């Protein structure tokens, strides 16, 4: 099915099931421990052995020798595969760093061996017996130091790198009455999901099956086949439950490759999980940015010039963090400049993490907007309202499909008692705490991706949906079931959903907050086809047939839906594809984030007191799971604002705090009252579901809202994240 005209009325609009805050259908399995994660799938194949991955102990250089003799002789060891056993493997389409093979070390903790043994403990013990000789080389590990060598980069790989310009930024900025010219920075961050990268691999001849934890099944299948030199049809990937991803599991990683290589060497199925330290340095992370923002405005607050240039680093052939994406679209202004600069670094691979681009970009832009509002003497909300735009500022003929940003801010201001905020910072005190409020805009583009599904109707078993879509904790199972139930006119308990298997139709997968809308749209397409098949079998005109309460009705005839299936059942498969609506309209999601913080006047410890997000993001398919997505993302935003930082050792070239003791994320005590409001919205431009994503919108802007609240509390403006207490101490009131 092709979606190339705005959606009209369709069965989803009935909202009997879709749009309802139903519980997760996988909830009972999750809470009873019967939704197994990759490493726990003991039943899928017998005789599983354990693999343990050894990471390189240097950041750049060559391996001169590996002595694995002690490891091979260790108790229980079945096989040892080292990186010197094979040339460098072909890289997957989505991989920047090589995952295995050959003597060259590109980054710290690059996988250099896997030991397979009868038990996990034996494999780990033997891995420590491997002796590795290195010839280290000097690396480039310091983004600031490499900045002068950075080159212009493009957001889209393949496109020529260029500055994006509208009007005459320099001229307008020079003449602006009120100007801001500041630099902000965000650190490297780790996804830090609960479930590590983990895979069980088993070979049957030349056919390989992996039971793994992956957000994008089709990419994983393609890239595993490519990496191992197999025909894609020989690879099956299965990932029905994923214990968190946040972008860290978008790609093929070393766990899958080494489980497969270990299994081949051992002649047995092998399971591999990356250790927590390897998650930081072996896999991907959100790259650090240094962002230069200039804004010029007239005295009435109208922005006349805006520039945002972001610098990040990555390995050779890597890409930039697209931290200027929102600045192209968020505010009006006739003279604009955005650009990305990329430095080559020999740190582990930078790549997508929840809301890549906008998350770090808004951490800078929305603090700059707060600073500008203060210079203009305007309320930060009014400043943003004055600069709202309903069209793409770069192309005024291209409207936003929906844009309720002002409504988000106005509604939030009322709900949050924004009027209680003191315009002058450092005014509110409660005992030892300085109190402040901050606001920031959340903005994240809505992407649509082709997505397929197969739907089956059985006489007694109801409706079964199969798609390789993944549920990474987001609630995919539930909204897909809701979609099928709505389309087929059955109750939710009559729908069974199977996900994450590459033998199912390829879906959009989970990434870029596109999964919710795109995957359900694919299910919609398949259900349209199934409805036609049902109508055809019953001799109904499919345009007239109504599917409601388990019945199919047309005119005065009514048939039980299951009876239409017959003894053999009915199956339909289709996928939703998209025309040029995304070109004709700018599709984005919006939020107003409000935060109140308390800062200890003596120590500078910042603690969030309450948070509110008001979101406008199309139809909300399930307000309960959508809320869970947003509060989780808000929590991640607090982490980004206050504590999360992969600390780079710029001499030795690695992330030092590579465990959850050193890489701090918020704990329950850090997260107080959170409230989420979804504005009523349907977006017929997005898909027949009229929905958009919220899973990334929830983090976008939160960091800046926290930063702005801290400024409001203390009068100390911190432009370099995370806002740890050492950056506040000098500006706090004197103590006795």
């Amino acid at each position, binding site marked *: 099915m092709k979606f190339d005209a705005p959606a009209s009325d369709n069965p989803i609009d009935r909202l009997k099931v879709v749009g309802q805050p139903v519980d997760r259908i996988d909830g009972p399995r999750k809470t009873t421990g019967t939704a197994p994660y990759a490493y726990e799938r003991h039943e899928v194949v017998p005789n599983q052995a354990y693999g343990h991955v050894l990471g390189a*102990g240097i950041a750049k250089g060559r391996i001169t020798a590996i002595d694995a003799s002690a490891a091979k002789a260790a108790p229980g060891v079945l096989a040892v595969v080292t990186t010197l056993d094979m040339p460098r493997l072909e890289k997957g389409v989505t991989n920047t760093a090589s995952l295995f093979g050959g003597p060259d070390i590109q980054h710290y903790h690059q996988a250099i061996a896997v030991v397979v043994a009868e038990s996990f403990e034996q494999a780990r013990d033997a891995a420590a017996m491997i002796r590795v000789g290195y010839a280290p080389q000097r690396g480039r590990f310091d983004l600031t130091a490499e900045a002068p060598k950075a080159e212009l980069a493009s957001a889209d790989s393949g496109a020529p790198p260029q500055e994006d310009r509208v009007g005459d930024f320099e001229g307008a900025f020079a003449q602006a009455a009120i100007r801001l010219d500041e630099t902000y920075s965000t650190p490297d961050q780790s996804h830090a999901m609960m479930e590590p990268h983990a895979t069980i691999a088993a070979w049957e001849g030349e056919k390989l099956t992996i039971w793994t934890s992956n957000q994008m099944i089709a990419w994983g299948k393609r890239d595993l086949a490519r990496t191992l030199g197999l025909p894609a049809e020989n690879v099956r990937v299965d990932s029905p439950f994923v214990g968190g991803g946040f972008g860290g599991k978008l790609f093929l990683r070393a766990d899958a490759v080494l489980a497969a290589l270990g299994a081949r060497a051992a002649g047995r199925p092998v399971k591999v999980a990356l250790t927590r330290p390897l998650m930081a340095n072996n896999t991907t992370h959100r790259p650090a940015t240094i962002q230069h923002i200039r804004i010029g405005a007239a005295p009435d607050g109208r922005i006349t010039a805006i520039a945002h240039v972001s610098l990040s680093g990555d390995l050779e052939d890597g890409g930039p963090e697209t931290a200027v994406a929102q600045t192209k679209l968020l505010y009006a202004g006739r003279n604009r400049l955005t650009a990305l600069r990329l430095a080559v670094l020999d740190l582990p691979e930078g790549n997508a993490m929840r809301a890549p681009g906008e998350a770090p970009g808004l951490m800078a832009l929305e603090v700059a907007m707060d600073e500008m509002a203060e210079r203009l003497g305007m309320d930060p909300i009014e400043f943003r309202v004055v600069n709202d735009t309903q069209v793409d500022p770069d192309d005024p003929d291209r409207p936003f499909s929906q844009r309720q940003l002002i409504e988000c801010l106005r509604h939030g201001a009322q709900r949050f008692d924004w009027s209680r905020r003191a315009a002058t910072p450092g005014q509110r005190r409660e005992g030892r705490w300085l109190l402040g409020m901050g606001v920031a805009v959340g903005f994240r583009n809505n992407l649509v991706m082709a997505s397929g599904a197969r739907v089956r109707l059985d006489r007694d078993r109801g409706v079964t949906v199969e798609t390789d879509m993944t549920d990474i904790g987001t609630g995919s199972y539930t909204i897909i079931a809701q979609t099928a139930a709505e389309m087929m006119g059955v109750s939710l308990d009559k729908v069974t959903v199977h996900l994450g298997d590459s033998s199912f139709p390829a879906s959009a997968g989970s990434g870029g907050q596109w999964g919710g809308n795109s995957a359900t749209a694919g299910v919609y397409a398949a259900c349209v086809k199934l409805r036609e098949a049902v109508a055809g079998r019953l001799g109904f005109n499919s345009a007239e047939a109504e599917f409601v309460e388990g019945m199919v009705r047309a005119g005065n005839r009514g048939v039980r839906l299951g009876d239409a299936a017959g003894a053999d059942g009915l199956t339909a498969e289709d996928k939703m594809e998209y025309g040029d609506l995304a070109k004709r309209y700018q599709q984005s999601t919006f939020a107003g984030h409000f935060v109140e913080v308390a800062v200890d006047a003596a120590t500078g410890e910042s603690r969030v007191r309450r948070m509110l997000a008001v979101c406008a993001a199309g139809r909300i398919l399930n307000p309960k799971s959508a809320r869970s997505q947003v509060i989780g993302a808000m929590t991640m935003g607090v982490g980004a604002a206050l504590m999360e930082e992969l600390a780079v050792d710029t001499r030795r070239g690695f992330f030092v705090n590579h465990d959850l003791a050193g890489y701090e994320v918020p704990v329950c005590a850090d997260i107080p009252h959170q409230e989420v409001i979804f504005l009523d919205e349907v977006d017929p431009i997005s898909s027949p579901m009229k929905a958009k994503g919220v899973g990334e919108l929830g983090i976008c802007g939160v960091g800046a809202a926290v930063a702005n609240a801290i400024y409001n509390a203390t009068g100390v403006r911190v432009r370099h994240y995370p806002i740890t207490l050492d950056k506040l101490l000098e500006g706090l009131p004197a103590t006795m």
Partner: protein
Amino acid sequence: MRPFTYERARTAAEAAVAARRPHAKFIAGGTNLLDLMKLQIETPTHLIDVNGLGLDRIEPTADGGLRIGALVRNTELAADERVRRDYAVLSRALLAGASAQLRNKATTAGNLLQRTRCPYFYDTAQPCNKRQPGAGCAAIGGVTRQLAVIGASEACIATHPSDMAVALRALDAVVETVKADGATRSIAIAEFHRLPGDTPQVETTLEASEFITGVILPPPLGGRHFYRKVRDRASYAFALVAVAAVVQRDGTGRVALGGVAHRPWRVEAAEATLPRGAKPTMAGILDGARPSHDNAFKLTLAERALASILAEARAEP
């Protein structure tokens, strides 16, 4: 984790005898040791489980103090009514540490023997004199935000991670031990933890196989008790700086610091200036500090945290 043998000791003396075996270690709660064994930072070949020894009571001493058994769990100690009433600084320090689950397992003696959380100590690909004497120290000149600002050496800039030990230092606790020959001794907490010097792998003055049987708290000090642990998140994090203080009505008192040195840091001579405020007192306590660029803030932070405590002490009825 290397393979190891295991036994359960029945008496403290028997445990000390068993520990004469080379590469033997006592295990109680195991909340630190097991992690270190998994990473092969600790590689004992023999474990002596001391959980069955009793030593899990808190009893009054003849002079009005308390004797805390070595195996009293952190949760029990923090919750003990006598501790909460007379040694509140200790109770508060304990509750500021780790998580409820860890405190349920962690013991009094084990807490004293925790090893540093220096990230370079935890990465076996990095040189660390504490892990591998003579290898060098990767932390010096590296990421040092959490590390020591005073009492460090050219060999090691690690800090001691315990909160409990900081409170014990303020309280002048005494560690009781038994050796393999049956001899017992008492070690003042001030003498118990060592500075790194050129042997950072030796962290206490315990002799090989010497076994901690308990900790003595002297009679109550009175005064108001504070434990101010400053950290980047609200719970479950090691201290950037922790201040244990017992402040009397007349403004005199005691101060010990955590998060700044290889052992709980206390300078008794500096406490004389406490009635004059945090600035002169902390200047005395941290005299000779040699912070790095990354952790110089700890000096300011310690002073401000103490000032905040003193303000609270003055304000309370």
